[in-house]
């Protein structure tokens, strides 16, 4: 970013949507633009590392998403962003891969291990869990501010159903965990400093999703200033 850009406040936050051939990313780009960001669809290191926020979409199998992320060197770039306190938002399988592991069809795949937990099949009569569901957001949530009682659009068969986060550093704020339920309680969203993620699709969740994305994009500009 040039010095001119910094001086012409208020600048729109820049967001890169990670482009690695995963499903419908067009909606995510449009929804983020509507939320007030300048959006780039790219997997180039300069775009991924320099944007104020990075969105990691993801649909399909856990293992194939991990493989595709590796193929564009995204694991390293996500790690670098998080280490530098730069915002990252994972969506759907883009959230799941942030956990330790995923088990699909009996095969365990390694995740990025940002958070403890294994992504497993939801124990419900009907899967995929497809449609609009409610969430329980914790006190102090930034993502769900003003939309705590809304429904969001989910489409997934797997989820993280337990949370055993050990607080090793009392000075560090523990992640804020939002839950939903389908067959069993599962994690619907996590807010953990620069690293946020939602199991549902905010870009497909109508006005509620638009508000969530706006909350996130606005948090980027607060940091940028």
């Amino acid at each position: 970013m040039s010095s001119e850009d910094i001086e012409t406040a208020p600048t729109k936050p820049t967001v890169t949507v990670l482009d690695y051939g995963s499903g419908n990313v067009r909606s995510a780009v449009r929804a983020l633009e509507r939320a007030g960001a300048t959006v780039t669809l790219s997997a180039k290191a300069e775009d991924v590392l320099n944007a104020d926020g990075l969105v990691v979409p993801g649909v399909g199998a856990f293992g194939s998403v991990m493989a595709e992320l590796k193929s564009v060197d995204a694991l390293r770039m996500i790690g670098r962003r998080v280490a530098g306190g730069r915002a990252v938002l994972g969506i759907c399988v883009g959230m799941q891969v942030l956990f330790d592991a995923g088990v699909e069809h009996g095969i365990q795949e390694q995740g990025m291990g940002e958070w403890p937990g294994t992504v497993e099949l939801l124990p419900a009569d009907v899967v995929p869990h497809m449609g609009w569901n409610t969430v329980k957001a914790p006190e102090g949530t930034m993502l769900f501010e003003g939309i705590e009682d809304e429904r969001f659009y989910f489409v997934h068969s797997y989820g993280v159903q337990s949370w055993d986060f050990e607080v090793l550093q009392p000075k560090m704020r523990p992640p804020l965990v939002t839950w939903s339920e389908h067959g069993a309680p599962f994690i619907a969203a996590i807010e953990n400093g620069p690293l946020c993620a939602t199991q549902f699709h905010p870009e497909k969740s109508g006005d509620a999703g638009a508000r969530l994305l706006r909350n996130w994009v606005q948090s980027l500009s607060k940091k940028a200033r």
Partner: protein
Amino acid sequence: MSVAIRVIPCLDVDAGRVVKGVKFQNLRDAGDPVELAQRYDRAGADELTFLDVTASSGNRETTFDVVSRAAEQIFIPLTVGGGVREVSDVDKLLRYGADKASINTAAIARPAVIDEITRRFGSQVLVLSVDARRTQGAVTPSGFEVTTHGGRKGTGMDAIEWAKEAADRGVGEILLNSIDADGTKEGFDLELIRLVRAAVHIPIIASGGAGKPEHFPPAVAAGANAVLAASVFHFGPDSAIADVKKAIRDAGYEVR
């Protein structure tokens, strides 16, 4: 609290315009698909389905244009069906901004295409559309046969067995359309829904026969996770979606 029953307006699109046939014939123009889609989004639709009924492949590009324009302005899930034959067709639809693709005849002709599409994009991307018709006599074990060409041609395949096979192959949802009920406005074919519900563990979208809001709760009671209709919404009052949701809520089910 649990996942809400989805209410899905279906827009039949021919060369870029919305049409809806009574029993799939006598098509009637009901406007611009994107305009209508936005109206439904604002009215509380939970998802939208575009069914491309364009006969000639030359006119299919108009549908991609419609999908692309819709995706620019609509932030609820969009399913597109019609003309989906292989992985590359789904890929193209997703690139234009669809969230899911529905497949019908091509999967009957070559069931393995279901495995191919869902392995590539995941189960959630593929809806199997089944046009089921009650058989005259014992053509299939369940008494329901899979048809093609809008119900005009029988396949000899058992509709319930087909739904089960497709689910096993990885399809994410079944769009279950009753050819007998379609266009009658007398209500859904509840027996058909019950039989498929007993056979599969994936979501069922019930379609065909809805004429008024009271027709919807019984479909949910029979096992539908979502309900899809066209005429009720296209030619009904502006409050049609809200009316349908109220009927479902009053029957004790959750809606958005």
